[in-house]
């Protein structure tokens, strides 16, 4: 059974273990395989090729016992001797006497402070092979300069200096030497009165050392030439790899350049330095050597590869201890100002969840009171004027309002019984403004016995026309019957397209009246085939766009037939219709604009009614002007007065 030597504590372990059962160090990576009991393993160590199973080699080893002794280095011999001395001590002690740390340290120091390798140390084939095999088993890379059997055969051993060879091997593998001579660890030392077991390989080494001590074969009498030659011959057959040529050449040069013996070189006489240079030389008394640390009181490493050294870092597992991690306080260091800001932020965030109550507005505010004042100021004078029916304001003059005179003339030009197309294209809300003019115009047309054809491009237009005819006719003095000399053609959809169609073919656009009568079959519309067949077209509108559509779609045909296009518009549409009237040639032949135009036209035709409308309009405008002026001045003054809120801003 082959045991594995722990690389850390040096104790043998069963091969099935991965870690040392003593120190729990990993064994697979760096552990030594302990030699089994018997001489085979020792032969393996001694054998340069490592093939200990061959009988011929065994014979060679047996026939050359001095080689075995030569293969044992001195440090190992010393260790072995110490071990044997300790084993012979009395067992009365509780702990076995082992070499102390000082002793081990001294051994390692002796190994480290070896003199430089002798050049001829390569000839010690047995030592090199022994170490090579030992290292190969330990898994350590073999040094390249270790002597091979081939090299040893080419360079026969001329020097019996075994000690230098041993020193060389020790110098080359100090760590391995230290490892092999490793002492028991502290745990082992702490184990009470356990008998010390010598490993098998150490027993073999002990036997070899005993042979040396008995002086059976003194090293000086060894004749290693022959066995080495034979062994080299065997190895030459078994080990075909040869060193490369460059290595051979360098070896030859080295052998040729190296003098056969180290001759004493002539001493170099010290140069005579000038005085000034001599003065510059550092004084040896100042710093003869470097600073040396006093490690006499330091601890000695008792385990691991640095065992025996003093003052170095201990590799004992106890040195690697799990420490409790340092605890840091999680409490933030904040200033008072930061705390105040945090509190403010928390208050803000807490206030986000709470619904903010809306400020309750008082029922009666200054704005509300101002509205009441404006409404009362407007309504009371107007109502008073309408109720009283007074006529105090000056009526507008006909000559001051453009278009009224021409409108009146165009109406007067219409022959009796003529067909006039009247378009009711205004909203019902403008009835109060437009009805003054419209009633006068319709009355004038009725008085001239004109046939009225009512159309509208506004949906409410047909009802407005029907209502206007009914009201106007009922307002005429002495009329108790309904007015029948008109027709209501109704609503023309399509806006501009409807007007265009009406201009080109009115029969096809509005073939029937609101009463579903075919008015185009009877007089006077039977003579009308297009828009220009009407004697006049009167448009009643409050919208400038509607007026523009009539001017653009119907106006050209009327102008070609020299028929008038007349407008009755609201005050808001008057400025946009007026340019058509003022154009040359005019596209609109007559215009009545707003209430003022209606009053002026009514006065011109003698149809004006004293119903207080004009006074109400006048006082309404006057009050509106006053309200605007007073409100603007008051607002400006209040705006300029500094208030508390403005001061805060």
């Amino acid at each position, binding site marked *: 059974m082959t045991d594995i030597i722990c690389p850390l504590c040096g104790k043998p372990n069963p091969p099935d273990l991965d870690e040392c059962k003593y120190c729990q160090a990993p064994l697979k990576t760096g552990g030594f395989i302990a030699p089994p009991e018997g001489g085979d393993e020792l032969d393996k160590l001694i054998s340069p090729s490592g093939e200990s199973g061959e009988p011929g080699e065994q014979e060679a080893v047996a026939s050359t016992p001095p080689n075995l002794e030569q293969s044992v280095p001195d440090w190992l011999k010393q260790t072995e001797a110490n071990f044997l001395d300790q084993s012979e001590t009395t067992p009365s002690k509780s702990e076995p006497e082992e070499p102390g740390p000082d002793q081990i340290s001294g051994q390692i120091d002796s190994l480290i402070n070896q003199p430089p390798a002798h050049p001829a140390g390569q000839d010690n084939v047995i030592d090199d092979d022994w170490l090579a095999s030992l290292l190969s088993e330990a898994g350590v890379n073999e040094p390249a300069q270790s002597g091979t059997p081939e090299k040893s055969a080419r360079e026969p051993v001329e020097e019996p200096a075994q000690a230098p060879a041993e020193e060389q091997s020790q110098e080359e593998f100090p760590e391995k030497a230290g490892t092999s001579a490793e002492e028991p660890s502290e745990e082992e030392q702490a184990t009470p009165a356990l008998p010390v077991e010598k490993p098998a390989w150490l027993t073999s080494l002990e036997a070899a050392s005993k042979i040396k001590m008995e002086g059976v074969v003194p090293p000086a009498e060894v004749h290693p030439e022959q066995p080495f030659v034979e062994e080299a011959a065997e190895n030459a057959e078994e080990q075909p790899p040869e060193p490369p040529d460059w290595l051979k050449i360098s070896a030859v040069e080295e052998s040729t350049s190296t003098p056969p013996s180290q001759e004493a070189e002539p001493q170099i006489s010290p140069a005579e330095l000038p005085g000034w240079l001599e003065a510059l030389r550092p004084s040896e008394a100042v710093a003869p050597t470097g600073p040396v640390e006093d490690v006499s009181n330091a601890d000695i490493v008792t385990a691991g590869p640095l065992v025996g050294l003093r003052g170095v870092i201990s590799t004992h597992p106890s040195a690697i201890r799990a420490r409790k991690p340092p605890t840091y306080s999680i409490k933030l260091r904040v200033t008072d100002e930061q705390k105040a800001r945090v509190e403010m932020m928390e208050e803000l965030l807490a206030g986000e969840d709470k619904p903010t109550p809306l400020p309750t507005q008082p029922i009666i505010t200054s704005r509300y009171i*101002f*509205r009441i004042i*404006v*409404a009362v100021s*407007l309504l009371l004078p107007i109502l008073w004027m309408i109720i009283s029916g007074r006529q105090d*304001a*000056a009526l507008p003059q006909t000559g*001051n309002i453009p278009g009224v005179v021409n409108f009146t003339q165009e109406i007067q030009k219409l022959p009796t019984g003529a067909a006039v197309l009247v378009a009711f294209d205004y909203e*019902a*809300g*403008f*009835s*109060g403004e437009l009805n003054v003019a419209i009633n006068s115009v319709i009355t004038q047309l009725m008085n001239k016995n004109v046939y009225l054809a009512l159309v509208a491009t506004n*949906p*409410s237009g*047909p*009802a407005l026309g*029907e*209502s206007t005819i*009914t009201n106007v006719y009922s307002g005429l003095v002495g009329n108790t019957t309904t007015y029948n000399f008109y027709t*209501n053609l*109704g609503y*023309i959809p*399509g806006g501009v*397209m409807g007007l*265009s*169609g009406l201009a*080109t*073919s009115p029969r*096809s*656009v509005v073939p029937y009246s609101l*009463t579903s009568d075919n008015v185009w079959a009877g007089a006077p519309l039977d003579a009308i085939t297009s828009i220009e067949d009407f004697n006049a077209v009167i448009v009643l509108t409050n919208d*400038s766009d509607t007026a*523009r559509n009539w001017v653009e779609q119907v106006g050209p045909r009327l102008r070609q037939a020299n028929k008038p296009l007349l407008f009755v518009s609201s*005050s808001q549409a*008057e*400025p*946009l219709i*007026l*340019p058509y009237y003022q154009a040359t040639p005019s596209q609109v032949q007559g215009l009545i604009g*707003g209430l*003022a135009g209606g009053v002026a036209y009514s006065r011109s035709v003698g149809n004006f009614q004293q119903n207080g409308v004009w*006074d109400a*309009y*006048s*006082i309404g*405008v*006057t009050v*509106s*002007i006053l*309200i*605007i*002026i007073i*409100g*603007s001045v*008051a*607002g*400006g003054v*209040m*705006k300029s007065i500094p208030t508390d809120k403005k001061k805060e801003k």
Partner: protein
Amino acid sequence: MKKILPLTNAAIAIVSGSIVLLGYFFPGLLGGIQSTLLGWAIILAGFALLLGIFNLVMVHWKKVGGEGKGSINSIVLLVSLVLTMIIVSISGPAGTFSLWIFNSIQVPAEISLLAVLAFVLVYAAARLLTRSPKWYTVLFLVTVLLILLGSAPLFFVGEVSLLSSLRSWLMHVPAVAGARGLLLGVALGTVATGLRILIGIDRPYGG
């Protein structure tokens, strides 16, 4: 089919527009076709009005089914619409009941709205300088006052000829100049839009 319909619509629109436009230049040749096409457009516009009324009924019918605050207004609108349609259908568009509904409900309602508009405008003008004391606000208020002063004779003061002349100048020169500029822009835009539709670049009918 998705490719054929847009092309068909574009072809119809371009041909119809071209015929109506050329009808003004060649009334003897294309006048009849132009009148026919315009008649069709007027019928379509009337049908669009009916569709608008139907859409209005549907919208307010949905509001009546909901629980909104305006549901009562929708109920009033639907009831008024149905009653008016029934009465006008029976009495006729020029019937006595139809005119009574118009003269007693629609005309006063619209006049009241305009009266409220006049009141709101006066109130807003009085507060305008308080809310926005800028130089153009002052300019606007001065113009309004001048127009009002010239539109009617002041009560207890009478007509001021200077103010009337100033109002006339304001209405006929600056106001008309601005309005005419707007109308010219609208006319040019209308011409450009009509040409784009005739060429087929703009297709408001889809495609």
